[in-house]
């Protein structure tokens, strides 16, 4: 890529569509190398990828409450009732 690369062109648009697959390691090695070459020269795409990584890290870190013990017993009781019916 030349030093005169201007962000927003067809290369950036094509890369934008592949960012999640790239992050997940689901692109083939040739595509991966092409994305890394592009990132090396395109700061806005690099920044965008980093912001997407952070968003995904926040999503992954969102936990849910544990299953209450009394709810387990309630479900087992519902199963036993249905079984006897």
């Amino acid at each position, binding site marked *: 890529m030349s030093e005169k690369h201007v962000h927003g062109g067809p290369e950036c648009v094509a890369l934008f569509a592949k960012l999640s697959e790239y992050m997940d390691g689901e692109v083939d090695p040739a595509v991966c190398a092409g994305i890394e070459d592009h990132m090396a020269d395109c700061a806005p795409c690099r920044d965008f990828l980093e912001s997407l990584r952070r968003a995904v*890290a926040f*999503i992954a870190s969102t936990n849910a409450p544990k299953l209450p013990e009394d709810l387990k017993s*309630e479900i087992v009781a*519902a199963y036993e009732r249905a079984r006897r019916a």
Partner: protein
Amino acid sequence: MTSSSENSRLLDRIRADAPGAFEEFVERFGGRIYAFGMKFCGEREDAKDVLQETLLQAYRSLRTLDNPEAMISWLYRVAANACLMRRRKGKYEPEREISLEELMPRPGEGPRVEIPDPSAMPHDDLVRAETKARVQRAIGDLPDPYRIVLVMRDMEQLSTQEVAEALGLETSAVKMRLHRARLMVRKSLEGAFAGRTP
């Protein structure tokens, strides 16, 4: 014993309707399905109903499942249906796919507001609670067909293949919806963090 062989052994016990098999089933998968219901529905009562419907229905139908490897996808399929029915949508298909152009910054427009690095967040309970609420809101605002894929892939850590099997989608559709869902959450978080110093 590996998780896969444990699932296989449990499936044998479910097929035989062995004493204690349902309790073991609840013990093994209850927490996971409850968490999934909470992450998708956002309400304890809904998550509780999703859990009960899923476990009772899946326990009955798992007896006919041939392949123990498909047990997780099968469970999530039942749970996803219960979640979507609860929201009265009952479908995996969006009215229309959201186009990438709608989510792409305009030329010359980079991320204006930096999303903070989650690993460098201050150990301040208030800031953490506020951030968690922002992330939950961003996820909760996603259209159902996108949210269900995001919750399964990024929160439940299912593989693309498992999500495809659970939702009856092609893997290409799972990847496409996951990408759009992430982009929507990113955009929403960018807006939510605007004006706030991380």
